[in-house]
């Protein structure tokens, strides 16, 4: 192994330049807005953004308001990846190879309705960055199940809890043979920025998955967004990792000082789970990390 599993990232300076304007209409405590702020800090102003239907269709501002300092194309729900690929082709045909095109979609627009376009753009090795900010349900319509919703979650369309596991999209993206796949969350800005900077420098299709806590959808106080994201990582429920072409590397080893049950019980979307069900999820998480540690 080239690097230890708990390798330390070098401290990254957080650029001062703000490309997300204040006063945007995101809900208080929304994880998706500060995620965009961090992402654009790393990517810089030579970025064009394509956003399919999602909470971000609203956060970017209703006409004539606009919360970004970079150009943005809004598209229908399933069009994100293909429209971004078209935008990139247009720039290339006009001699611009420098501008980064970033598709920025929620989990519904990525895992479900936008999946075909995502797979096509990835398979064609389109020179672009695709970011999925995953709040684990269709939050813009009030919280309904997507294939990114974790097992057991209560949503508007799974009132008894979702029976199925979350789709393993990250390995599906790896199987496409893309240039870069990573996960990140706003609770760890150094890790977050490092990955976006890396993605900015690479060519070909890059995919970043963001865990994006949603206070209204997940059921936690709006000042706890960073805490919840941190609990997800430290309990091992969400793994910060990176695919370098051959292996998954954990970019931040969880302390496990937070129990998975505590992470789940801090959110009302899991409030209906019995002690046994909570334990079952914790057991699966432990088994996953057991496998990871054997590999790393």
């Amino acid at each position: 192994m080239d690097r230890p599993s708990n390798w330390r990232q070098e401290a990254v300076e957080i650029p001062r330049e703000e490309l997300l304007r204040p006063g945007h209409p995101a809900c208080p405590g929304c994880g998706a807005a500060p995620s965009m702020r961090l992402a654009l800090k790393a990517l810089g102003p030579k970025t064009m953004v394509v956003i399919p239907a999602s909470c971000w269709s609203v956060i970017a501002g209703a006409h004539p308001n606009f919360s970004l300092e970079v150009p943005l194309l809004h598209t229908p729900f399933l069009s994100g990846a293909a429209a971004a690929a078209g935008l990139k082709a247009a720039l290339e045909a006009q001699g611009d190879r420098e501008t980064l095109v970033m598709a920025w979609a929620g989990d519904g627009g990525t895992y479900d309705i936008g999946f075909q376009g995502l797979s096509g753009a990835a398979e064609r090795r389109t020179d672009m960055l695709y970011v999925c900010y995953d709040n684990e349900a269709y939050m813009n319509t009030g919280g309904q199940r997507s294939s990114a919703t974790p097992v057991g979650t209560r949503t508007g369309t799974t009132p008894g809890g979702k029976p199925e596991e979350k789709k393993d999209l990250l390995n599906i993206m790896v199987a496409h043979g893309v240039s870069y796949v990573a996960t990140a969350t706003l609770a760890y800005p150094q890790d977050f920025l490092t990955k976006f900077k890396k993605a900015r420098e690479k060519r070909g299709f890059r995919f970043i998955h963001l865990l994006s806590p949603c206070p209204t959808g997940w059921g936690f106080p709006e000042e706890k967004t960073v805490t919840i994201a941190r609990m997800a990582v430290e309990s091992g429920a969400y793994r910060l990792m990176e695919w370098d072409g051959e292996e998954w590397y954990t970019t931040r080893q969880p302390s496990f000082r937070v129990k998975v049950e505590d992470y789940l019980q801090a959110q009302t979307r899991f409030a209906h789970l019995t002690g046994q069900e909570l334990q079952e999820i914790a057991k699966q998480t432990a088994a996953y990390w057991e496998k990871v540690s054997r590999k790393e």
Partner: protein
Amino acid sequence: MVEKQLMLGSEALALGVKLCRPQVIAAYPITPQTHIVECLAQMVEKGELSPCRLVTVESELSSISLVLGASAGGARVFTATASQGLALMHEILHWVAGMRFPVVLANANRALGGPWILYMDQADSLSQRDTGWIQLYCASAQEALDMVPMAYRIAETHLLPVMVIMDGFWISHTMEPVEAPSQEAIDAFLPPRCDELKLDLDNPQALGAPSPSDTFYQIKREIQEEMERVLEAFPQYAQEYNQLTSRSYRLVEHWFMEDAQIALVGLGGITGTARYTAQRLREKGIKAGVVFPRSLRPFPGQEMRRLLKEVELVLVMNRALSPGMGGQLTQEIQSTLYGLPRVPQVTDWMAGLGGIDPTPWAIGEAVNRALKGERKIWTDRPIGAKRL
């Protein structure tokens, strides 16, 4: 003398695209359009379209989404489809038009299943009538070529998307002599795309943001008004094109209408058969003429009324059905003629669906029945493509 080459309708259309110097093409196969994107792929492979990017996408949803994004990047874009493919694009067709992107799309008319049907009718394009796209119909391979530069000229001048539509198989897969205009002629007719409707790093804006109702209402009103300006400007574009290429295109094509008592009205290839039939009918003393609105949207109502107001009978040759109402083209004609001091008899003839071929004999029979006063006609023994 200008040399003519024998080529398929789809090849002629692809040649028209090439002459317009597209910058991004989205390619996805579907019968009977596939030849168009194959031809273009070969041109790209040979370097004839450089620096054009041809992207082979994974569905029509992605082909139309891709040209949407590319158009937002300022490029001249093209894609082609047919039938199920056009139906699949429906949601994005609205989006492209609402955003005023000057996209040009070719459609080779084919029926919509189910059951499975490969043959020609116009249900696919007529079903997209209300999406905000201009629709230009073609009745020959030559027209399939010539309507592409016309489409880009209109699209980029008026910021409205345009469909160039030809009969699947009967034009797309039929070889005809075609006269290609020179590159110089097309370059003179069609300057590079130069509108400002594109993403710009120096002036960051959002395209397509959620809009308040009054803005949305205004956007739709502007589209309607722009459609009306297209009708006004079409004769000028046609005249310029005709001068550069020695053609004779008009907003509404018509033949033998000077003294006609019967007007045969249709879209696309059927008007060729109708012209032949009109001549045979005239030999028998029946004064028939033919009317072909080149553009279904915007609909040239004024010119149609001028041509049809004096006739006794309008026989509408429909190739698309609105079940529960009747022929789709009939509805257009009837609403156009409504309110004339003397409205001619309008007969709704279901001339052909799913590859039923309206032969001169079938047109003659429909004329006879309409002359006896029939208002709705289905052909009793329609002739079409053989069973598989």
